[in-house]
């Protein structure tokens, strides 16, 4: 198979037109910020500030002494008003520091992170995977010594429908992205840099090409979901499959999101901690757009800034509609991995069907699965709670891209069923 075309996948309606042309604009400082101590995969931070304490923009407010973790910084000058559990977009409860911003703010300045070397700077800046995975970046920058990485792949595919935050980032500040890619390559000793963009973002591709030195490849990839999934992206560039149970580095490649690369560049060049990010607010809102949002901004405030919702609301999603969770409450903060807020009308949202809608064995899910699984089989066994049966169909290889559920004509909740089977396989030790 030709490079650039992974097998499987789907073409969901892309819905990006509403915000693809909207330049990134700052959202004004809201009246309070709620900063969860866990905005990353790994060990949660402990607050290191106290209620009543005044903090500065860029000051560390939460940290932990664990390798797989990332510190949290205050995005503003302000006063800590509470340290209490809060709800996150994913629906869990974590400790959070609430900060009331001062009336006067200078978002142009910040406390620089102190670090002796570039990798420590990335860690001190609290950089995590900003495409949604939120894996602490430093960990990815430290691959095991026995798996040399030659290729840095930057993921600018943004294959999720609706989202345009990465698109605008690449278009408006291509040099930051390229700078970040070069920094990553230096840190891990890679010789090849490839920035991947789906071919529905020609302007971003041109901007990157214009700014890129000869050593940086900018590749236009076919627009197909999930083109930006790590394993599919590596396949597109290197025609190598990440072996089951191995890290992607086993293929000699490392994938980072473009926004992560920009954050890495900021951390190393200017000592800037990760305190804000671009969030696409779109769907049924009055002023869809790409907003630069301080971390900790409540999604309710963000939606209000975007003019509020329009018409009847079916579901509000944090992130893209293929992988993002629907929000139970809007009083949850924007975190490091929040790439978008998508307001779906009831008609746009996937229908909720009765549980007894059977599989008609059409095979669409298998055809769409980029991991070549048989989602129907895992789903059917999982629905019967037959974990051994489900385990025989490799649930642990599922990347939870959502293609199978998307294409199913009887709207079976395949991804949910597979998630349950995965959990069962892990806890009950069912061998794939």
């Amino acid at each position, binding site marked *: 198979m030709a490079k650039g075309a992974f097998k499987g996948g789907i073409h969901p309606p892309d819905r990006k037109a509403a915000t693809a042309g909207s330049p990134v604009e700052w959202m004004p400082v809201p009246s309070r910020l709620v900063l969860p101590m866990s905005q990353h995969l790994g060990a949660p931070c402990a607050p290191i500030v106290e209620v009543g304490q005044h903090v500065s923009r860029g000051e560390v407010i939460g940290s932990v002494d664990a390798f797989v973790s990332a510190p949290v910084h205050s995005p503003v000058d302000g006063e800590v008003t509470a340290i209490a559990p809060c709800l996150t977009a994913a629906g869990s409860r974590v400790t959070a520091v609430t900060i009331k911003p001062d009336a006067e703010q200078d978002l142009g300045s910040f406390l620089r992170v102190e670090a002796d070397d570039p990798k420590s700077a990335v860690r001190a800046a609290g950089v995590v995977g900003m495409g949604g995975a939120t894996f602490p970046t430093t960990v990815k920058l430290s691959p095991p010594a026995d798996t040399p990485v030659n290729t840095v792949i930057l993921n600018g595919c943004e294959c999720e429908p609706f989202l345009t935050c990465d698109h605008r980032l690449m278009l408006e500040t291509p040099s930051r992205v390229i700078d970040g890619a070069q920094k990553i390559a230096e840190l891990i000793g890679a010789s090849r840099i490839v920035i991947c963009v789906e071919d529905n973002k020609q302007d971003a591709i041109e901007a990157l090409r214009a700014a890129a030195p000869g050593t940086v490849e900018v590749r236009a990839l076919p627009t197909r979901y999930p083109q930006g999934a790590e394993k599919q992206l590596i396949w597109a560039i290197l025609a190598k499959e990440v072996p089951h149970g191995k890290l992607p580095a086993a293929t000699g490649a490392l994938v980072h999101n473009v926004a992560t690369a920009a954050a890495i560049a900021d951390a190393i060049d200017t000592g800037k901690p990760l305190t804000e990010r671009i969030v696409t607010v779109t769907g049924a809102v009055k002023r869809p757009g790409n907003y630069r949002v301080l971390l900790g901004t409540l999604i309710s405030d963000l939606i209000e800034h975007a003019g509020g919702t329009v018409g009847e609301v079916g579901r509000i999603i944090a992130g893209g509609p293929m992988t993002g969770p629907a929000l139970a409450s809007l009083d949850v903060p924007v975190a490091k991995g929040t790439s978008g807020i998508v307001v779906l009308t009831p008609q746009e949202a996937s229908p909720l069907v009765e549980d007894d809608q059977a599989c008609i*064995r059409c095979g669409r899910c298998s055809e769409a699965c980029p991991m070549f699984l048989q989602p129907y089989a895992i789903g059917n066994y999982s629905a019967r709670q037959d974990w051994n049966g489900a385990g025989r169909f490799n649930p642990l290889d599922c990347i939870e891209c959502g293609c199978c559920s998307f294409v199913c004509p009887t709207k079976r909740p395949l991804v949910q069923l597979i998630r349950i089977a995965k959990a069962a396989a892990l806890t009950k030790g069912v061998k794939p």
Partner: protein
Amino acid sequence: MSPEMTAERKPVVTGSPQISSTTTCSGIMLWVVIALAPAAVWACISMGLPAIRMFALAAGSTLITEGAWNAIAKKRQTLTDGSALVTGVLLAMSMPPMTPWWITVAAGFIAIALGKMIFGGLGFNLFNPALVGRAFVLVSWAGVMASAPGRGWFKTLDIAATGGYDAITGATRLAVAAADRAAGGAYGFDLAAQYQPLLWRNLEGSLGEVSAALLILGGMVLLFKGIIDWRIPAGYIGAMGLLSWAFGSDPIFNIIAGGVLLGAFFMATDYVSSPMAKNARLAYGIGCGVLNAVGRFYGSMPEATTFAILFMNGIAPLLDRVFRPRVFGWVKRNG
């Protein structure tokens, strides 16, 4: 909208993905009916009232059986998924128009009751319901079915003189061809001369045999809409043609005569009773074609489509196991 309002409205919380394709089960079934429509309507025009009555009886029987079953078993009503209608239409097209009405009604009842509902409804049946219904009446009332004539009659053929034609009541072109072959070509039945009537207007045989061209058109619609996988009809028709040729007959005649096209495009492609893995589908299609050809040339019945597909339905799960695709990231298939 304020967040308070949302709290009141209780936003729906679901796992990802939050959007889904517009393809639905009933939508797919509707397309199958649309694809069958040209051939079905042309059958009604060409054969007249008996054909119309056949559609009404068959579809009425399948729909009423399914509705009644759900009502009696106190199950969620499933008539709107469209599958009972498809079964009814397919069943009608597999029957000669002059079939006694009670046989059609019985076939519809058996198709749904024993072909589908008893397994647990759509999705759980091993065999194609329409073929189960047809097979049941073929076996139960073999004599009646064999003599149930088409609408045309083979009067154009002057082979009665040789003594063969009389023996074939309600003969179809397929039956005449078989008799001719058995007689070592004594009747001089010219297969190539049958292309035109078989393609456009053939009144000998069942409703689905009226126009091969319109069946192909319907098959193309399903392929184009991505509803069926080309591997099944291609394997089926390819194997049928190749074997017909190998057995010394005319491949084109053997593809367009009888139930091969209806079987290859509309019956063997039934989702529930066919395999899902790509290579399994190809193998299954080829298997259908091989069995159909062998049945036609060496079996007792010239029309072997029904049993060929039913047999392959039975081994479809096995084919899926044998041809299970390799998982991404695995060197070999893991068992």
